[in-house]
């Protein structure tokens, strides 16, 4: 990876608690390059206006930028058409839309919704709510010991009563990359739709929704060097066409009568209210930035970082790493615990050395239960991290261990 990349991220040029900042929490949210920050600034300074309505020039420019961003996203994930790209607040909103619209219309009492033990809360609770409302059964696919998913277990869980299978592409805790393409095939054999939570995948791998043949794919801009508050739901056109909106109001309507109204065509019928225009513009700039470097290159870098980090971290006595041991099977996410030092304490000690890691349950409580821990620490790497960051982390972890063994 080109060492210049780090220099595009202004936030990384600061000191935290007297040390140069080492940001290892990109799985929570990524930092933003100057190109994205400039795109937002330029939009607000030159083009800001509401879209799809004004006759005036600014309105046209804003509309062109907003719809241009949609086209960019379409190509980024290789969707068949721009109608299949819906701009929403983020992955959570996208999955909720599928649950509330597609789910309510298609899941009946006794039907099954299948998810896994490694889901983020945003891919659990929408289905719990739907299952409770419809009297459906929520089923969890068991994990293998190393935190991977076997297709045998997938086949065992999905039946002809299954209407929806929803699975994370890359786990935000274990870093596991799941075989969503194969799972989609199994889901389809049983007449179920396949929903993919791509929040941790879109920033790190080349996404091809047609190749995956998933029915829905959700992701967030802020995890892929874009702004917060913008996300995407991809859905196959024939499914989106039969779905009802869940938010009603301006922008999404065609004709409004006193007692009844009709909706715009796709994708706008799902985008009620003034859309997230600046967010979409920022996301487009983020996609440009990532594509210039190359998603293949980014994925390679992450496997490399995961391999080095796992190697160096496991040399620390009493440090346990969760998830697949093979770095080729995981993204740049390393979740761990240190014997005798609680993850919050690890995170505080690291923070005093300017190193940002996440500590807690990572919005994945069922997975924590499966791992039989209440909390873990997590270091996640992105394109702006390099090996020297890993060395600082390892040094910090050794100090934490020493500090706590001294006080004991």
């Amino acid at each position, binding site marked *: 990876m080109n060492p210049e990349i780090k220099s595009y991220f202004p936030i990384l040029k600061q000191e935290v608690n007297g040390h140069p900042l080492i940001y290892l929490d990109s799985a929570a949210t990524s930092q933003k390059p100057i190109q994205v920050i400039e795109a937002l600034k330029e939009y607000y300074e030159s083009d800001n206006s509401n879209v799809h309505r004004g006759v005036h020039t600014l309105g046209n420019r804003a509309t062109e930028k907003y719809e241009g961003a949609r086209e960019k996203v379409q190509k980024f994930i290789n969707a068949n058409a721009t109608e299949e790209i819906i701009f929403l607040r983020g992955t959570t909103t996208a999955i909720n839309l599928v649950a509330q619209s597609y789910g309510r219309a298609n899941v009946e009492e006794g039907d099954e919704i299948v998810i896994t033990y490694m889901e983020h809360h945003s891919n659990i609770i929408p289905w719990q709510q739907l299952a409770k409302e419809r009297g459906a059964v929520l089923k969890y696919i068991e994990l293998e010991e190393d935190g991977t998913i076997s297709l045998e277990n997938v086949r065992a869980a999905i039946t002809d009563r299954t209407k929806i299978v929803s699975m994370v592409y890359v786990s935000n805790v274990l870093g596991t990359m799941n075989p969503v393409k194969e799972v989609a095939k199994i889901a389809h054999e049983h007449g179920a739709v396949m929903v993919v939570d791509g929040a941790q995948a879109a920033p790190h791998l080349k996404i091809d929704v047609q190749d995956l043949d998933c029915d829905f794919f959700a992701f967030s801009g802020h995890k892929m060097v874009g702004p917060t508050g913008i996300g995407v739901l991809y859905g196959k056109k024939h499914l989106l066409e039969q779905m009802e909106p869940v938010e009603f109001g301006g922008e999404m309507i065609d004709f409004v009568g006193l007692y009844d109204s009709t909706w715009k065509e796709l994708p706008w019928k799902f985008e009620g209210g003034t859309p997230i225009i600046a967010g979409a513009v920022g996301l487009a700039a983020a996609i440009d930035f990532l594509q210039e470097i190359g998603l293949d290159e980014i994925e390679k870098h992450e496997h490399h970082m995961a391999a080095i980090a796992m190697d160096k971290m496991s040399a620390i006595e009493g440090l346990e790493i969760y998830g697949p041991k093979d770095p080729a099977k995981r993204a740049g996410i390393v979740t761990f615990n240190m014997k005798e030092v*609680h993850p*919050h*304490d690890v995170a505080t000690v690291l923070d005093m*050395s300017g190193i940002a890691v996440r500590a807690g349950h990572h919005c994945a409580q069922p997975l924590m239960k499966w791992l039989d821990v209440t909390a873990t620490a997590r270091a996640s790497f992105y394109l702006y991290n390099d090996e020297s960051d890993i060395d600082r982390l390892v040094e*910090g972890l050794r100090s934490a261990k020493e500090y706590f063994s001294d006080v004991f």
Partner: protein
Amino acid sequence: MSSNNLDQLYRQVIMDHYKTPRNKGTIEENSVNIEMNNPTCGDRIHLTLQVEDGIVKDAKFDGEGCSISMASASMMTQAVKGKDVDTALKMSGIFSDMMLGKEYDDSVDLGDIEALQGVSKFPARIKCATLAWKAMEKGVHNEEKS
């Protein structure tokens, strides 16, 4: 590493309570049970209180969490045991002020709890320290209602 700053947070007495927690366990009979967790980080406390005639006769805790949350729970049980409910609640208010970095009433002897003062400099950790106190307040209020 800035171990001076860390020493402010992890005072010896805190580590002592973490390592050898006081009043660990559960009171089986005539007690009020409170389960409380910190949903953002997974810290969990199970507190049992025995309140008779407006006095906290006994307090025990169990749970999982970081050094700050467990040490704070240990100190809290030690502090409120034998106190009347009003004093216990007053101490909780003082502790909350201390955590928020506000001026606090120093007329009440807080004992070991004073050691947690450094936590106020670590905003992300304040919730760890206040969890046990929140549980105690809830328990006392439940007891009053019943």
